């Protein structure tokens, strides 16, 4: 059911049958290893199981256009796009920070428009083109200009918010290839950075747009 070019999504496989899920959990406990990993997994899996899912309404099998490839995936009605990307399609470059539309770490492009994937039901974007951070580099591995500029300008500090910042910047440059620094600041204003690397991010966006980097800095 999944495209062969992509690794089989582990969590989904675990979920596919009650027996295998039980065995997996038992295995983790018995081995005594990866205790924290198990905690993460349980957190991830809560409510993600098809058991207890409501019936009626939309079909669960979806064709999703992600990064230019159509992928078939089993999506619950109450599943956010961030969940589908991370836990069904293994596209973990999209981060979950707040899961409430208040931080921007989960930003992806829907038909080239920056969108919080935590606040979007996957079923709502069935017929749309989804682009994640994984879809930016070209086939030969060349980074997107915004990604390269982030490296050149030492944009990120810890890096957790970076995929979201990059997606917002890519959306801006698609609509406005020559933004002013103020326009870039507005475009990235829906992405929080707890390291406070905002000016570095803006430098990166201006470099990616081929604009002078340090002009217009506040005095």
């Amino acid at each position, binding site marked *: 059911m999944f495209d062969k070019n992509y690794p089989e999504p582990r969590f989904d496989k675990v979920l596919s049958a009650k027996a295998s899920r039980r065995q997996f959990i038992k295995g983790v406990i018995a081995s005594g290893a990866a205790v924290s990993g198990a905690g993460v997994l349980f957190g991830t899996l809560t409510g993600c199981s098809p058991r207890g899912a409501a019936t009626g309404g939309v079909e669960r099998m979806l064709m999703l256009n992600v990064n230019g490839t159509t992928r078939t995936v089993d999506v619950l009605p109450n599943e956010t796009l961030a969940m589908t990307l991370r836990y069904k399609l293994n596209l973990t470059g999209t981060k979950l920070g707040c899961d409430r539309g208040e931080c921007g770490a989960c930003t992806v492009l829907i038909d080239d428009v920056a969108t919080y994937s935590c606040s979007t039901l996957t079923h709502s974007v069935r017929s749309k083109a989804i682009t994640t951070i994984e879809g930016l580099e070209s086939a030969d591995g060349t980074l997107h200009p915004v990604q390269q500029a982030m490296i050149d300008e030492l944009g990120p500090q810890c890096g957790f918010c970076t995929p979201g910042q990059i997606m917002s910047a890519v959306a801006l440059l698609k609509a406005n290839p020559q933004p002013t620094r103020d326009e870039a600041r507005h475009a990235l204003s*829906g992405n929080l950075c707890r390291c406070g690397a905002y000016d570095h991010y803006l430098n990166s966006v201006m470099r990616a747009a081929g604009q002078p980097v340090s002009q217009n800095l506040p005095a």
Partner: protein
Amino acid sequence: MSKDMMPAFELYQPDTVDGAIELLTEAGEGGWAMAGGNDSLDWFKDRIKRPSVVVDLSGLDELRGVREMAGGGIEIGALTTLTTIERDPLIRERYTVLADAARRVASPQIRNTGTIGGNISQDARCWYYRYGVDCYRAGGNTCFAKSPEGQDREHCLWGADRCIAVSPSDTAPAMVVLDARMVIRNAAGEREVPAEQFFIGPDVDITRMTVLERGDVLTAIRIPADWAGATFYFEKVADRNTWDFPLVNIAAAMFVEGGNIARIRMAAGAVQCVPRRLQAVEQAVTGQPKNAATAALAGQTSVRGATTLNYNEFKVPLLQNLVTRAIRDA
């Protein structure tokens, strides 16, 4: 951070408004109409609202876009995003106050999916209510914000009636100023409600902030030609420039003839449960010269009768200053 999912529900994605109304009517108490989803999904994730049937309106393309109406004025589909409204040439040309208000909502990503219908229909932002406590608005018999230790910094100056929550919308005051008409459809038919009557306070119904009832779908907003091309003013003050709801916002439309204010409408948000139309100000300044003295008079007039709570006294000079600036700087 919570990485689990929201509770299960049945999801329907109708492609006609009639289909949506049928689904919502059938679902009754367990039904939920979702537009952009920004607020809806937060409610579900927090388990405060637990609908069994969610009707996703986002596929109703007939409810998107800005159209010119016969006889002047415009009609805005309720699902039109705030980003579209911020950039729409017609709105920017004739009703800049609405474009300016839309631009100050939340964050770019939220404006990209958030709809104008959702923005004006959003529920109270009181954090006690949002936390799921058994307050008056949630059907209980206490206001936690108004208790001696309650945090009421964001709450109202007027219209307290058990609940002291305020209208949280940035675009709602602009709608009142423009005398917009809300087009509401349900199984019985279609009706048009003026913006001033669309928003309701706790004295009318403490469990909702608009006249929308179960089975109702807000389909469009019609803005008459009356205020097209007026001199406009919009300003919002919030703790942060992104995401935050207004502490106070102000919207004004006026026609100035020969230096005098010939006609004016003004409304403030986040000071009452509904956008507060400042009629006393309108009356005081109509016919007066648009100058600093009139602006000062307007500011003083605007705060008469304000009743402060424990921590929101700052809203009085804030509103006064915003009203003064609206006359002075428009």
